[in-house]
């Protein structure tokens, strides 16, 4: 039976890696009590809290954390009319945090995710593992049957061409979850008691040309390499769909990573996911997505980006064009989404002018 680690068991590394180069983005609507448990691992890092829901509510951040907090009023103020691309009343609003960050790396985690334990009972420093994943190459062009060859105790197997052993830069590190698995509503309804207790001690690169469902609960990425593609779409209030924010970002990200020769890893680290959301609420949110994804997946699988798309932004604008052309007929929602994708890039470029590197922002 999977259990979360207790705070006293957590042993922080002597030197927190990348502490001035990584921001932790957390969307929240309730409270941030969960941060107490993560304190030994998170305290050295700067936090960006994106408050969803009622902006008049005060979210208390535990003492000792260095953070900036944005609510809906801040988002509207900072982005003006472009704020329309940021979801309201959905954790998809977290991507605003990616946009305002000034760091190279982002780690995002949900507020119902606790520290997990590995099979030996030791608390897992998820952030440390994500950093290892991001700082070592990926191998998307040929599958290594012993998983990540750059991990301690592993290597490339016989037959792996030497010319492919340098790998490519890793853009995304996708972590997993013990306890409540990330199932869709129908599966949750059929298997309400299923818990993920299997600790799979592997990190692997998802091969080029293969899509996957990217979950935003425990996710890290190189913002400089792929940030602009991490738009979490239009979800929540006023939208016909929910719980497809991270999925949408993941499909866009993978197509672009494949095009630009960047890698996506999945596997370790695990966090302990404590809260199972209501499956009936989830079903209502996901319902359209379940049908739409049958069209969306072939769309992404067949998407080809032209050679002159050499930056993430160019790739993303091109994808938005293709979404408008090919998916609008599925539902007018995609027409709106395509427009929002363009707005997102415009907002990103405004807040992140090329060449500028600034200190952490402050939500005034």
């Amino acid at each position, binding site marked *: 039976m999977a259990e979360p680690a207790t705070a006293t068991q957590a042993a922080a590394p002597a030197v927190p890696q990348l502490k001035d180069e990584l921001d932790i983005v957390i969307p929240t609507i309730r409270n941030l009590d969960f941060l107490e448990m993560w304190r030994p691992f998170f305290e050295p890092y700067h936090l960006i809290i994106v408050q969803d829901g009622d902006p008049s509510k005060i979210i208390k951040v535990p003492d000792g954390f260095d953070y900036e907090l944005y609510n809906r009023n801040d988002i509207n103020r900072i982005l003006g009319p472009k704020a329309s691309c940021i979801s309201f009343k959905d954790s998809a609003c977290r991507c605003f945090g990616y946009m305002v960050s000034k760091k190279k790396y982002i780690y995002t985690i949900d507020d119902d995710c606790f520290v997990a334990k590995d*099979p030996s009972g030791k608390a897992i420093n998820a952030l440390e593992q994500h950093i290892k994943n991001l700082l070592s190459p990926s191998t998307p062009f*040929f*599958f*290594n*049957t*012993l*998983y990540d060859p750059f991990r301690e*105790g*592993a*290597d*490339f*197997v*016989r*037959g*792996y*061409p*030497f*010319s*492919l052993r340098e790998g490519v830069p890793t853009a995304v590190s*996708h972590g*997993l979850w013990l306890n409540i*698995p*990330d*199932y*869709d509503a129908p*599966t949750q309804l059929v*298997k309400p008691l*299923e*818990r*993920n*207790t*299997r*600790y*799979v*001690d*592997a990190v*692997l690169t*998802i*091969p*080029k*040309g*293969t*899509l*996957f*469902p*990217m*979950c935003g609960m425990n996710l890290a990425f190189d913002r400089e390499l792929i940030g602009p593609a991490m738009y979490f779409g239009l979800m929540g209030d006023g939208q016909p769909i929910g*719980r*497809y924010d*991270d*999925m949408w970002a*993941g499909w866009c990200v993978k197509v672009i990573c494949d095009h630009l020769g960047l890698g996506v890893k*999945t596997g370790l680290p695990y966090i302990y996911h404590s809260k199972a959301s209501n499956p009936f609420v989830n079903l209502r949110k*996901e319902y359209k997505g*379940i049908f739409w*994804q*049958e069209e969306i*997946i072939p769309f992404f699988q067949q998407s080809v980006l032209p050679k002159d798309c050499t930056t993430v932004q160019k790739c993303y604008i091109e994808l938005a064009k293709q979404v408008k052309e090919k998916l609008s007929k599925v539902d007018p929602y995609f027409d709106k989404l395509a427009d929002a994708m363009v707005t997102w890039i415009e907002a990103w470029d405004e807040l992140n002018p090329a060449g500028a590197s600034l200190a952490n922002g402050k939500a005034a």
Partner: protein
Amino acid sequence: MSLEIKDDEIDIVIGAVSSDMTSFLNEWRPIFSRFHLIIVKDPDLKEELKIPEGFNLDVYTKSDIDRVVGSSTSILFSGYSCRYFGYLVSLKKYIISVDNDCLPARDNKGFLVDAVAQHITNLTTPATPFFFNTLYDPFSEGADFVRGYPFSLRSGVKCALSCGLWLNLADHDAPTQALKTRQRNSRYVDAVITVPARALAPISGINIAFDREVVGPALVPALRLAGEGKFRWETMEDIWSGMCVKVVCDHLGLGVKSGLPYVWRTDRGDAISSLKKEWEGVKLMEEVVPFFQSVRLPRTATTAEDCVVEVAKAVKEQLGSTDPVFARAAGAMLDWVKLWKSVGSSSSPPGV
């Protein structure tokens, strides 16, 4: 959700590249004794095979091979490739094959791994090559498809090949093992995954299982290195065969799984001596991989045999002039398909 498999639908094929099979078979006895075994003796091996009592097995030696395929074609089956003869003459639907220097492994909890049972589970539950499931094999106990996995892809496809892994001496090439002489694989990764469509992988022959009826002809004893020897570091035949099978499976809409079960591979040989003697295989992979990544099979190829013939044609055209070893491989692939059609039979139903 898995298919029902009876013990008598399975053959366990072991290539005897060394003569003393006693400790190997005795260690595997608790797992193997229920099944029919086919032991194929490497035709180059001079010593008599030592085989303990109590197994239901058939042993094939050089004279059997010569008799069945003719002495000119029997060259296909020397060294590690002797096992392919076993695949050819088997009458069963499923084959499981491990190198004879591999013993049963223990899992993370210390239990003996029933590699046969795991391979059978892999082959009888669907594979999911068209979309990656982040919780790995959705058909294993306690797992399922994750949110965002399209429902139309959840029934999966037939799994034709199951590739297991190795604890202790992992299947690294000679340069890697020579560099890390003391490195041993102690990481037991509790997962089975489907190798995605169009993704190629070096499919080691050390610990595999497959549906003989569906892909038997695609496991080809074709790529023989000039200096091929009696250690895995000195061979590439299985890697070539594995790429061929993956391309064929991708074309025919079949699945390939990798991961569990583990076997324990005993320390044998010296990577540095192998490296001094032979590293042609390492060089050849630089040609082999781009070739297989680009090969496209026509729609008219609807069986494994058809596919192998097409691949052989492509090998001859594109790689034949690069190195004589490829021209020979193309020829061997065609010989193999001919043999398969004349000698290989489909499995007979139980009791016949």
